[in-house]
């Protein structure tokens, strides 16, 4: 069937896989944003920078740390990074929350956005002055090199691992929030923090830990991304804008909604990038040039080059049809 569409199945499934991976990252990041927003009422613009820092900590641990401390044998391998980078970035997030963010809770939400934007600029700028802007390579860990031939496509092991790991983390987070006692405190805090505090729950501590966890999720995604994308200081900021659009599309009311929207939009991006829709439109309209002309602007949106904007286009459509977002509630 794929042959009929004018592209090879390998190319189509390859792009779908890339879409699935991007979608997993969108899911983890928008999940973190949604949790933080729920309790802190702040949109964490630093999220992209914290994702980038996760990747850099993994890179530094593997290639630089031994050199820096004068002991070349000291190497923090990928698996340790997967644990340590989220902890380090989470601790950094807790520091930010304790020193800066907590001063803003009584103010308009917009100040939180501006503050975290400023922190993102600082982090990005510092990493730029230290490491430049060229991408740095991070090798796939030895256990996950190679791949499987699935018949219709070649599946690199590492990419399969990324999808499985990120969806597992998303699922665990969803389960904790929606199905456990701890999660019920968290949801109660989202609804009415003062009442929860009156019941004897330490809400400020909960807020701090929530921010730390949301940020740690971003760093976890960063470590997962390091071997796929090149590690560079700007890797987070371009991603975070797309994630914002994902959040607008999904609405921040629902954890499961954030995950589903993230993965779904990643797949849509992959489909557009494969060019299959543009080819289908070409085939369908090849009989009548007039229709082809009329539909040309639509086709333009589905060109592979347009995959960078397709999520924004979806956002516009959702805003027109369902302004609160697919899973959002109008307040």
């Amino acid at each position, binding site marked *: 069937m794929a042959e009929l569409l004018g592209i090879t199945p390998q190319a189509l499934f390859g792009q779908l896989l890339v879409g699935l991976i991007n979608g997993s990252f969108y899911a983890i990041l928008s999940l973190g944003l949604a949790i933080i927003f729920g309790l802190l009422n702040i949109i964490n613009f630093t999220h992209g920078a914290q994702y980038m820092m996760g990747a850099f900590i993994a890179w530094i641990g593997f290639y630089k740390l031994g050199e820096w401390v004068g002991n070349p044998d000291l190497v923090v391998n990928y698996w340790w990074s997967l644990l340590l980078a989220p902890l380090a970035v989470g601790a950094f997030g807790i520091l930010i929350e304790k020193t800066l963010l907590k001063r803003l809770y009584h103010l308009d939400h*917009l100040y939180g956005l501006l503050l975290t934007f400023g922190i993102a600029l600082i982090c990005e700028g510092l990493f730029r002055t230290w490491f430049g802007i060229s991408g740095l390579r991070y090798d796939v860990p030895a256990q996950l090199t190679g791949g499987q031939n699935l018949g219709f496509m070649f599946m690199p092991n590492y990419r399969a691992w990324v999808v499985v790991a990120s969806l597992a983390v998303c699922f665990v987070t969803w389960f904790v929030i929606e199905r456990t006692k701890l999660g019920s405190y968290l949801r109660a805090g989202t609804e009415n923090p003062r009442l929860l505090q009156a019941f004897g729950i330490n809400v400020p501590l909960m807020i701090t830990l929530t921010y730390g966890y949301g940020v740690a999720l971003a760093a976890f995604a960063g470590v997962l991304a390091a071997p796929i994308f090149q590690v560079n200081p700007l890797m987070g900021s371009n991603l975070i804008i797309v994630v914002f659009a994902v959040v607008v599309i999904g609405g921040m009311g629902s954890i499961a909604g954030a995950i589903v929207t993230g993965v779904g939009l990643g797949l849509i991006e992959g489909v557009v990038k494969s060019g299959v829709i543009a080819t289908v439109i070409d085939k369908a309209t090849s009989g009548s040039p007039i229709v082809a002309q009329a539909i040309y602007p639509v086709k333009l949106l589905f060109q592979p080059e347009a995959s960078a904007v397709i999520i924004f286009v979806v956002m516009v459509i959702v805003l027109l049809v369902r*302004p609160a977002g697919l899973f959002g509630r109008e307040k």
Partner: protein
Amino acid sequence: MNVRVNGTLLGIALLLVVGLIAPLLVYPTFMMKVWCFALFACAFNLLLGYTGLLSFGHAAFLSVGGYLAGHACKAWGFTPELGILLGTCAGGAVGYVFGWLAIRRSGIYFAMITLALSQMIYFVWLQAPFTGGEDGLQGVPRGRAFGLIDLDNIYAMYYFVFAVFMAGFLLIYRTIHSPFGQVLKSIRENEPRAISLGYDVDRFKVLAFTLSAALSGTAGATKTLVFQLASLSDAHWHMSGEVVLMTLLGGLGTVFGPVVGALLVITLQNQLPQGVGAWVPVIMGSIFVVCVTAFRRGIVGELQALFRR
């Protein structure tokens, strides 16, 4: 009240004097850049400072004005004032559409939507055939204003730019002191009450957004003529952040704050010695953090509070 009005008039007079003698004291191109960004920041302030809407995508309008004016002057032989007019209208038109879409959500969502929409514009400029991609639209002629004044003369260009800035500035000043401006302020202070008083709040928001975007287009078009270049960095989200910083540093919701903020930020960017240049984002981020945590009224806002006591 009387004292305050006089203070504002005094400020405008001071602005005029500074504008007129500045090219004798500092490098005119630098001052032209300041006026372009001051107009951009004033237009942004109309939206954030007076209507309470945080747009994180104003770079889109700056770049729409810049690219279209640049292309019109270069390829279609537009005179500079027509180029600026086109840039203004284009900025306003794109602003109308963005505003119409973005006001469906409020607060933080509004900021995220404008940011995403402006990123879309960024990709359009990256891909469109006439923009020169990463290199930008180069070699835009300055031309002759009204067919008479040769703008290749740097002083002629300077006073032309200053006149554009003053026109935009006075328009904004007039707007915020008009009944329309009062409604905008009431929306900022208490939107539900403005609705209950019978104002069609959405229409006012879209109008304010359109006006702000149109004047940002003016600033972008003028900037393109000054540097004879429309570049991709004008459309980048960093630029949207910069204009927020200028307004915040100078003073949100003050008439002169954005001008002061633009002057400071541009001076900072231009005057830092070689080698320290890479630190600009770090410094700007730090100013953001300081402004938000400790200095929310901005420079002009603090001064006003000082004098009122």
